[in-house]
């Protein structure tokens, strides 16, 4: 099992969710996050006072999937979240040791 964590632009969330549903992903977890990458921050100006905003709002989408689906998930996210401009985000893939469905006690891929 793998955990795919994608940091994306907030306005792309709906598209990504739809694309993941289409390839059969059963569930995702979404978190509003802030951070910076190569896009860095932006400046804001109020009556001559300039502020540099370092952390930009992004959305983190986490998907736990069986090994076989990882490439499809990555493809679905990259295709839908890409605008081609700086700040489109990143996808991280990590190994997932265990998964448990709380209601039934199922474990492993059956729990996903």
């Amino acid at each position: 099992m793998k955990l795919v964590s994608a940091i994306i632009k907030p306005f792309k969330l709906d598209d990504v969710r739809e694309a993941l549903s289409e390839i059969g992903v059963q569930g995702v977890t979404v978190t509003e996050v802030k951070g910076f990458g190569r896009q860095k921050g932006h400046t804001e100006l109020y009556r001559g006072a300039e502020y540099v905003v370092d952390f930009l709002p992004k959305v983190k989408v986490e998907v736990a999937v069986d090994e076989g689906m990882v490439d499809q998930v990555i493809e679905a996210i990259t295709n839908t979240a890409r605008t081609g401009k700086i700040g489109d985000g990143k996808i991280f893939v990590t190994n997932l040791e265990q998964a448990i469905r709380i209601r039934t006690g199922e474990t492993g891929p059956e729990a996903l």
Partner: protein
Amino acid sequence: MMTKFNNKGLIAVLVAAVAISVPAIALAEEKLNSGDTAWMLVATALVLFMTIPGLSLFYGGMVRSKNVLSILMQCFAITALMTIIWMLYAYSFAFGDGGSMNGFFGGFDKALLQGVGVDALSGTIPETVFMTFQMTFAVITPALIVGAFAERMKFSAMLIFMAIWVSIVYAPISHWVWGGGWLAKYGVLDFAGGTVVHINAGIAGLVTALVLGKRHGFPTTAMPPHNLGLTLMGASMLWVGWFGFNAGSELAADGVAGMAMAVTQIAAATAALAWMFSEWVVHGKPSVLGIASGAVSGLVAITPASGSVGPMGALVIGLAAGVGCFLASTKLKRAMGYDDSLDVFGVHAIGGIIGALLTGIFSATTLGVFSGSGLGGDNTTIGAQLGAQFMGIAATVIYTGIVTYVILKVVDAVIGLRVSEDEEIEGLDLSHHDERGYII
């Protein structure tokens, strides 16, 4: 020769017309005019609407979210407190007859609103309406100062400071200019309060900002406005309410009131665009805060002029105020390093001074398309009128500067002016009111 004589005659008539419009010279034999009274009832409500909710929202949106309630609360409490003080004695200080002291102070003869009964008249309107109209000015002037010490003054100290300030600064100065005091005799033109309200509040704001010191973290920490939507709504309400402020200051529903309304609209719009384009040129983008601030600066600058300038004069005044206040609020404040949180000095003092001086020019009847409807008092030349305007500005700046400083020092010595650093960092909403503006 003949023409010259006629012009002089015309000027004399116009001067007399302006003199009649000065509120203090109430002619006892005048009868109540229901049209004037109806308009003044509405104008009074409009000016109250400027403070609550107009100014409150304008300022409330500009502070950080942890202090939004403190601003709304201060404006609301000032509205209530000033009402009571005005009723008890401040109306008398401003518009009473001070006898031998009348040049400087209106005395106690109208204290507790004695004699201000159902049948009492002030010009062609009931004195109750005149008193309440002036009360709304005594409400908004202290409330304007709130922007200068926002996010760091103790609520209790604020109430005491404002109570003393309106009694010994605002009421006497309004007596000098409007109540038949010494400045009125020099023909200072201050139709709706550019000097009495705006320069006065702007200078008091600067002194308060200096005495209280900078906010914790200023200017290195980001302190952006938390909700510019509120600020724009507040500025819009101020704009609408200002028709009551300026056109209402005629105290009648007549041609002067009509022109006051027109020039108010023209100056506000010109200044809004002037600030917006200045910012666009200097910083690269036009901003919401900029256009809102510009409109307010134009409204401030046209205030003293609205009874005596024409549309083209208003255009120049709006342009000068938009550019001048933009520079004062963005460049001057940065250069000088004082923390006038919401630019009360940059907008109200600078805008008020620009307006007061240009009133001395564009009230003249000799400027062709830029002409106004006449100079004040016995002044026959623009030079003489500028002298009078300058004296009005200087007297206000010096008096309010010194007395405001003394009041602040006394209040500081007795109960302390400033919140503790912990309270300031936590935000005044929680530390002073046990409430939060946003529970999301």
